[in-house]
């Protein structure tokens, strides 16, 4: 059976498989608990606890952030590690090491970078401060309003990339060096893991942690949640920035 016939058979088989799969899933979806009903099985004591006890106990008015960074903190710790490990894998793949001379790096850089378009760089000049301001606002108010470390971090990363395109690679790299990246990310994640390790240990063994809910509605309330949000924002923004640099240029400058 030559190659084309095998491919055609494989294609037919796959489409059939998918159609059957979608049919089964749709049939199953009809039997699932209908959306929006207050009597669904997933509206049980768990969400009620988060909405009722969460803000009171942790001081975070946003119940989702309370859940993410206090009650189900182990998931979020795991998730930041997913981001960190993904960045490490991208480093393994794309970082050009050894004695790649500077012109090869510049050559690779030219590969993707458009000519410095004056209109774009001027508009970015105006946008960059606004974006940074907005990102910091979202991160700091994670526990009071929708937002938090992840979305704030993404906006900060966008700000960094805008800064990169506005001021060109050379300026950005004056402060965004590989050493800075590694130190800041490692510090943020270590603080995160250590803080959460501490709270897990104290909580599991019934000891009292120093966290206290503070005055609800204020920024400096909700115990550890604010610093953790900041760490997460740092990790997210640094990771996204480093992935962009890796794909674009194959590495920070030395």
């Amino acid at each position, binding site marked *: 059976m030559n190659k084309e016939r095998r491919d055609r058979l494989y294609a037919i088989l796959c489409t059939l498989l998918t159609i059957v799969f979608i049919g089964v899933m749709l049939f199953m979806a009809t039997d699932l608990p209908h959306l929006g009903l207050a009597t669904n099985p997933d509206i049980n004591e768990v969400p009620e606890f*988060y909405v009722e006890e969460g803000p009171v106990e942790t001081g975070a008015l946003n119940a989702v952030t309370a859940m993410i960074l206090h009650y189900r903190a182990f998931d979020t710790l795991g998730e930041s590690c997913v981001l960190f490990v993904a960045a490490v894998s991208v480093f393994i793949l794309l970082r050009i090491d050894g004695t790649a001379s500077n012109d090869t790096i510049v050559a690779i850089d030219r590969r993707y970078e458009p000519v410095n378009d004056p209109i774009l760089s001027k508009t970015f000049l105006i946008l960059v401060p606004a974006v940074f301001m907005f990102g910091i606002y979202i991160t700091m108010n994670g526990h009071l*309003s929708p937002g938090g470390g992840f979305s704030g971090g993404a906006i900060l990363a966008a700000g960094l990339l805008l800064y990169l395109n506005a001021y060109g690679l050379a300026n950005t790299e004056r402060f965004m060096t590989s050493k800075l990246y590694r130190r800041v990310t490692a510090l943020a994640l270590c603080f995160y893991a250590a803080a959460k390790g501490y709270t897990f240990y104290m909580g599991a063994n019934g000891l009292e942690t120093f966290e206290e809910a503070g005055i609800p509605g204020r920024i400096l309330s909700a115990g550890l949640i604010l610093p953790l949000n900041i760490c997460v924002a740092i990790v997210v923004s640094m990771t996204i920035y480093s992935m962009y640099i890796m794909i674009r240029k194959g590495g920070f400058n030395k």
Partner: protein
Amino acid sequence: MTYFFADLPEYAAMILFGVGLSILMLAKNLVKKIIGLNIMDTSVFLFLAAKGYVENTVAPIVTAEELGHIDPSLYSNPVPAGLVLTGIVVSVSVTAVLLSLVVRLNEEFHTLDIDEIIHILRKRDREDLK
């Protein structure tokens, strides 16, 4: 059939999952496979987010005044929101690793078709054997 329109997001999610799966299996180009993968993940997040909606409720962000007496039935379910957040971050990082893999494969084999890559590797094997 009264709930058909209410459950529309679930059906859409299931169909999208199937679409994503088929793209993943059928697409020749690696970037298309990654797009299929993203469609698949997004459909699951659609399904999860749809689960979070409860009729005439608002997002679970309470105001400082009513801290003492919070009535949970006014607020929607926060758990799916948290899960979707984690899911999105996971699928972002996975897509980033996949894309950098594609960049590396393209540098090495100058093609984006995984079958062609395997064909080149088999040929390289045969030369080693000789």
